[in-house]
């Protein structure tokens, strides 16, 4: 059964996937007061890769994912690639579940074992992934209204305690921190969009991948830039990288009568994280079943979701490791999954499609 996601819904799914669980972490903290420059640099550096992914999908000429992949790359290379990305998507869902369970334990439920939170999350994402990408995209559209409203209110209220002088002097330490910050952002969250390549089954038209990936990514980058820069202006450039959750600290400084507003940031984190982990599980399930030659992916969702529970406890155990994984500067595995493999397969796809066109004209 082909699963079709309209362009506008797909765009929102991309947006919420990127914003996802990222908002609460001290992203790009190494750039200090130049964090906004790091975001702009990372966006410019990530954009070619996003365009490349959209181009590969558009080369499939509107075919469904599986048939399109076989058409462009051939049967066995595309199955091998799917297996590699199954592992990546599954690992990413483990990381997201670990982020959320550590966050919940640190902020709200210090005496609750992380495995309990992880099990509840696994059940939720199992349900969402079984419903499929169409339902997830519609859920993203409905929830985006809540997320945008919360972010807008938070942003306006943060302006009352923000100090723009925190961004000065510009590039005092040169370009190196800006680039280090940009590389941090590329790995997490910008180029994690590569997972979404495996989630969308078919698009409305040949141009649709561009209409889905590019505006979705750019809007998410803008939201993250605005919210992160505002948090830095509130907590201060020197203290931004000290906190595990700087935006949480920034929002706690807002005074509206006796109300505490941090929890509303938790709402966006919860919605985004849920969507991201469900999308990752869906991608992992689709990739595994495709690699083994099955058309239906739903029957492997349960074992993969149940593997996420121990995976999330094993791959990352403490809050310090969560922070380390969020702010690391481009590890080798990310380079391979997010840059090397997509570039190689884009080149192969262009050559094969050009050859096929040439043969078509010749014949």
């Amino acid at each position, binding site marked *: 059964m082909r699963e079709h996601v309209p362009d506008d819904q797909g765009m929102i799914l991309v947006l919420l996937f990127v914003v996802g669980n990222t908002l609460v972490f001290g992203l790009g903290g190494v750039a200090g007061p130049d964090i906004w420059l790091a975001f702009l640099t990372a966006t410019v550096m990530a954009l070619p890769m996003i365009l490349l992914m959209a181009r590969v999908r558009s080369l499939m000429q509107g075919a469904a994912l599986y048939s399109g992949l076989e058409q462009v790359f051939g049967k066995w290379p595309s199955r091998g690639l799917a297996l590699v990305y199954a592992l990546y998507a599954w690992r990413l869902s483990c990381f997201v579940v670990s982020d959320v369970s550590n966050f919940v334990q640190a902020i709200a439920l210090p005496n609750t074992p992380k495995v309990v939170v992880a099990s509840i999350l696994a059940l939720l994402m199992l349900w969402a992934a079984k419903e499929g990408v169409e339902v997830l995209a519609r859920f993203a559209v409905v929830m985006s209204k809540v997320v945008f409203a919360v972010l807008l209110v938070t942003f306006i209220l943060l302006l009352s305690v923000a100090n723009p002088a925190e961004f000065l002097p510009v590039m005092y330490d040169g370009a190196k921190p800006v680039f280090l910050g940009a590389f941090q952002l590329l790995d997490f969250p910008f180029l994690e969009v590569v997972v979404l390549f495996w989630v969308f089954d078919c698009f409305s038209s040949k141009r649709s991948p561009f209409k889905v990936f590019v505006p979705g990514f750019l809007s998410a980058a803008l939201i993250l830039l605005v919210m992160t820069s505002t948090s830095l202006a509130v907590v201060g450039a020197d203290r931004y990288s000290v906190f595990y959750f700087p935006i949480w600290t920034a929002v706690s400084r807002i005074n509206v009568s006796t109300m505490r507003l941090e929890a509303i940031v938790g709402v966006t984190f919860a919605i985004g994280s849920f969507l991201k982990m469900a999308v990752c599980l869906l991608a992992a399930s689709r990739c595994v079943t495709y690699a083994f030659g099955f058309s239906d992916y739903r029957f492997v969702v349960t074992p993969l979701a*149940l593997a996420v529970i121990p995976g999330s406890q094993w791959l990352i155990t403490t809050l310090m490791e969560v922070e380390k994984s969020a702010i690391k500067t481009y590890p080798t595995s990310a380079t391979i999954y997010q840059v090397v493999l997509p570039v190689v397969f884009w080149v192969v796809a262009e050559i094969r499609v050009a050859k096929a066109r040439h043969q078509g004209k010749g014949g």
Partner: protein
Amino acid sequence: MVGLVILVYAAVAAFELWLWAERPWQKVLLYLVLFAGATTLAVLPVLNPDLKVPEPLGFLEKLLKRLWQKGGSV
């Protein structure tokens, strides 16, 4: 504890298989292999809490770091 973990995973697998309308052997095989993997993953950290996370690309990272320190010359 290990026995309990295995029992829970086996019970979930058996229940879900029972719910399937059709059980083609290829699907059942992949399902059971994945479930066995999930169970192993759940049991290993219980047996050894200090179990290290495998780094299949660790050698590549070490090589790159060595090359970087030597300014590109091996």
